[in-house]
């Protein structure tokens, strides 16, 4: 019984921790809702995307490519390219899922977005965090995303110019703060500088979200090479 309560606590903590960033998620969702009307995507289709795909930037691209004769293959490939980073994100969650069953992993992994993933890893550096925390955060982001997109579709965007309220910068600010909480000390200097340089260059040269993969892998390879040099 005790274990069950612990899981509920973790889900609640994860949900609460994601509330601040969820406000931005909802505001951006409302922008997608408005875009969806222009592309003749019904609110039911939009809700179905939210629940079954649950990946913001790929949904923006999907809705943008939406037309009367749907290019199914092209859309699927675009989604694959944009969401490819989830392969790395999933891999980085290994410590959080240590010792859990396969079924548990299958149930928990659907609700993984950039926001609750980063929040969970940052929290795990401070103390013991389970996959319940990740899942609770996912529920929070999913709720905000559905509220935002559907009300945008039904009622119009929350705010006419999100830039004036720095809602675009809210994501940058929260991810910056979370990045700092992942800082392990001097060993991170070289990998992080490498990641920044690779990400900035590849963001200019490659489409979609490939820069996250290039920077993430490139930076994480650095300590392996520098260790070899020491020997």
């Amino acid at each position, binding site marked *: 019984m005790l274990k069950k309560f612990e899981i509920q606590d973790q889900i609640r903590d994860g949900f609460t921790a994601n509330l601040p960033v969820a406000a931005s998620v909802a505001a951006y969702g409302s922008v997608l809702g408005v875009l969806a009307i222009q592309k003749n995507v019904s609110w039911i289709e939009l809700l179905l995307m939210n629940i079954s795909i649950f990946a913001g930037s790929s949904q923006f691209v999907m809705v943008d490519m939406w037309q009367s004769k749907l290019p199914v293959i092209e859309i699927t490939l675009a989604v694959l390219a944009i969401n490819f980073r989830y392969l790395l994100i*999933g891999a980085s969650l290994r410590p959080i899922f240590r010792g859990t069953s396969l079924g548990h992993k299958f149930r928990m992994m659907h609700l993984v977005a950039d926001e609750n993933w980063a929040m969970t890893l940052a929290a795990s550096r401070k103390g013991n965090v389970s996959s319940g925390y990740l899942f609770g955060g996912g529920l929070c982001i999913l709720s905000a995303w559905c509220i935002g997109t559907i009300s945008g579709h039904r009622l119009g965007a929350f705010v006419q110019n999100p830039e004036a309220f720095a809602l675009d910068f809210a994501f940058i600010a929260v991810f910056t703060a979370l990045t700092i909480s992942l800082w392990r000390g001097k060993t991170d200097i070289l990998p992080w500088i490498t990641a920044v340089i690779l990400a900035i260059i590849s963001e200019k040269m490659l489409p979609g979200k490939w820069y996250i993969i290039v920077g993430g892998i490139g930076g994480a390879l650095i300590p392996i090479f520098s260790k070899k040099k020491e020997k």
Partner: protein
Amino acid sequence: MPALITIAAAAIITYILRIGGLLLSDKLPRTGNVKTFMDTLPGTILISLVAPGIIAAGFWGLIAAFFTGLCAYKTGNVFMSMLIGIGIIILQRNFL
């Protein structure tokens, strides 16, 4: 119907990437170079995700990100750090 197929295909692809990453990492060794790589990965993914956005936000983006990061480093409070960054950008966009 084509709408449903399109959404289903996107959903399946995305879920396979999420669960696939975790299951593949389970197959990797937990020692040596792989461990070093896996331990470094969260930080490098996250900083790669955010760095181009900071640059795109220009000079004030850098300033705001600096104070956000400084606050996060000193206090460990993500929410307060986020408010500082947003506050700087709101002030700059509306009053400067």
